């Protein structure tokens, strides 16, 4: 198939960006979306032009590196699928495709489609862990954990930290990301000792980073490649209120 791409080009964080059009021909339906961009980039390099910068690594949908807005939708049209796992059979000959970076003030553009997501790491550093030094642990089977609790923890822990939730939200809120970590650890007995401080400190850091708040659009859940439920945001709000009341 032959396609026309409109890609956001921006030379650096402070440079002005714009959409540029490129034609890509003879695209196979078995290609992944990123392989289609590889073909474009090989062509651009060959012509001595600057290739399109985009983050990617595992190309298996798990590392969370990749992410771009495809035709207005983070990670593109296929539900619960990262853009590296999106395949060209979802498109048809003659399509025009608009490709842009995540847009949020807390995720400044580094170059083209690459954004800086260090804010997510700083939020985790405020409490997204269990404070247990190596060597402290008792036997792994010493505390039975109900399968439903373990499963819920896993549902939340499946987050890959890609930032699609922020890109999808009209408020550029990071609440689904933060709630996923708080919800993962709050579902387990190991997470109880620091449950209050974790919820409070992570939410405060989220605000300090300049992410917006949730106004119940649920765009984040729709865009999440791992299908993480907004139910975790409700749980996080309850934990945050609890922690705040305790002071």
């Amino acid at each position, binding site marked *: 198939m032959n396609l026309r791409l409109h890609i956001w080009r921006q030379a650096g964080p402070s440079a002005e960006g714009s959409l540029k059009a490129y034609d890509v021909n003879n695209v*196979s339906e078995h290609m992944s979306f990123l392989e289609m961009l590889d073909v474009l980039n090989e062509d651009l390099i060959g012509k001595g*032009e600057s290739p399109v910068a985009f983050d*990617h690594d595992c190309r298996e*949908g*798990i590392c969370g590196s990749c992410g771009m807005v495809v035709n207005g939708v983070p990670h593109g049209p296929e539900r619960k699928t990262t853009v590296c796992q999106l395949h060209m059979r979802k498109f048809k000959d003659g399509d025009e495709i608009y490709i842009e970076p995540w847009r949020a003030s807390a995720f400044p553009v580094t170059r083209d489609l690459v954004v800086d997501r260090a804010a997510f790491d700083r939020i985790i550093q405020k409490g997204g862990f*269990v404070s247990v030094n190596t060597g402290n642990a008792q036997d792994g089977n010493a505390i039975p954990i109900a399968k439903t609790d373990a*499963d819920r923890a896993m549902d939340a822990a499946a987050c890959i930290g890609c930032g699609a939730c922020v890109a999808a939200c009209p408020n550029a809120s990071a609440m689904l990301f933060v709630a996923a970590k708080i919800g993962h650890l709050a579902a387990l007995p190991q997470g109880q000792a620091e449950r209050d401080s974790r919820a409070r400190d992570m939410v405060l850091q989220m605000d300090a980073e300049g992410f917006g708040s949730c106004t119940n659009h649920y765009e984040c859940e729709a865009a999440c490649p791992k299908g993480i439920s907004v139910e975790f945001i409700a749980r996080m709000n309850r934990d945050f209120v609890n922690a705040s009341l305790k002071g």
Partner: protein
Amino acid sequence: MKLNANIPDGPIQQKWDKHIADSKLVNPANKRKFTVLVVGTGLAGASAAATLAELGYNVHAYTYHDSARRAHSIAAQGGINAAKNYQNDGDSVWRLFYDTVKGGDFRAREANVYRLAQVSTSIIDQCVAQGVPFAREYGGYLSNRSFGGAQVSRTFYARGQTGQQLLIGAYQALSRQVGLGTVTLHTKKEMMDLVVVNGKARGIVTRDLKSGEIESHMADAVILATGGYGNVFYLSTNAKACNVTATYRAYKKGALFGNPCYTQIHPTCIPVSGDYQSKLTLMSESLRNDGRIWVPKQKGDTRTPDQIPESDRDYYLERKYPSYGNLSPRDIASRAAKQVCDEGRGVGPGGLGVYLDFADAIKRLGQAKIEERYGNLFEMYERITGENPYEVPMRIYPAVHYTMGGLWVDYNLMSNLPGLFVLGEANFSDHGANRLGASALMQGLADGYFVIPYTIGGYFAQGGFDKVSSDSAEAKQAVAEATERVNKLLSIKGKRTPASFHRELGKIMWDLCGMARTEAGLKEALVRIPKLREEFWRDLLVPGSGEELNQTLEHANRVADFMEFAELMVTDALHRNESCGGHFREEYQTEDGEALRNDEEFAYVAAWEYNGVGVAPTLHKEELTFDNVHLATRSYK
């Protein structure tokens, strides 16, 4: 050079305890005076950095990713082994040790493997305490499944995302230390070189991938946890950025490279679909618990799988290896797949594929159960191929997955260069010539959480650490060399992209140094690789500058090292006149096509010393002695 593995005396069961008891300690107040650089933030690197910081050392951690959580450990699917014997099925530290030595085709160091099996149980405890959501049974206790090369169920898992969950656990432990100010995290910094001062590893040179700044960082010890070199084949299950640069640069600075020819070809990957293919995707080995592998009995059978009756199918693993069946070890299952495809019985486009069929399991357990066990893997398969594996069998083919070789280390995980420690896939130590499934995660975390925290103290306690700064002649020279190299890559301005060179190198390696190797083929590779390398340095095209985010330049820098490393790998494969594990030389096989080892001449670790680009490296041997395991022909029949 005399290689001393520094294996403690005494019975194998007591070596590690004795070593800990005999090791000198560093006073808690003195620990913060020692600076450790940890390169890589995967399972081994993140766990080491976090644990060393907990102990009080001054730690700096480096990753070329934008976040420590992106390391490729995250992609491991199936599980992590541990000798817990929760299933009451006869497992023990001894059995895990034995299975691992045998699985590695008797080419691993016994003492290291025994320690690995010993600490495996503590890893599970530690990860549970961190909140890793391992799969559980309804009673609330931890669940296990089986993996290849074992007849017990000792694999712990978190759906099909075990690597992700273990890495997030280590990442969170690391993040906690970053928050406490005990670890300084350097993201988007790629190691370009090792700085050696007075024979000791004392620092690294990094390039900032956003600004292009090249600088040195000095310390008292350097830990490399930089993963494997599977991407020398271009197509592999490794992430796109995985590379050999850190370990290869250390090799060029005097560290020995152990067993570079030992590479693992994983039997269950999604077949190549076209020339544009950028990487290969693994389908977890855990699928072989319930999936049955088969091809048509007759070659050229073009019927769709549902039209081929049972009597016309060859379940070749079950036929050839009845006691392990579909759970035969990876090297054996891969070679068997290659054999049936070479016979013309392969399926799918090009005939490079075999079926992995779940029809029987779905009939026996119901679709819901299969979905619970492997749902995310089935979804991934469908996304990539457009076929629904609940209805038609998966098509799979072997692909490069893991590299058992790596920098040579002693029992303390220290290389021959004092102060240079190497952990995880980057070292050569525990898997011999073939790694068993679910053992990579075990080794990465064993090295980081439970080995290096003990052994690095013994090194520091020896004393003799003069202050060195970035102003030292050695550091300045390493920075100058790295800068010159970047400028050289940019200045060629030829016609070919780094990716096109990488593909061509990968094809040479896959054809001539892949699943089956011959003397003639390897010799041909030794002619073709230097030619390609010469063309690379003459006709490379890298647009842009070195003072900005330049992903083409990053790739070119990594490919440049693969161009030299490939020759080392082929040299090792050519010298090892035997077949063992993942190293299969066609000249050395039994009558029924199994690997034929030569223990008389090759029961050693081949540790190579660098002599210059294009100059033959010097071979050093660490003889392997087997005092506890009887050297036998590996049989899974």
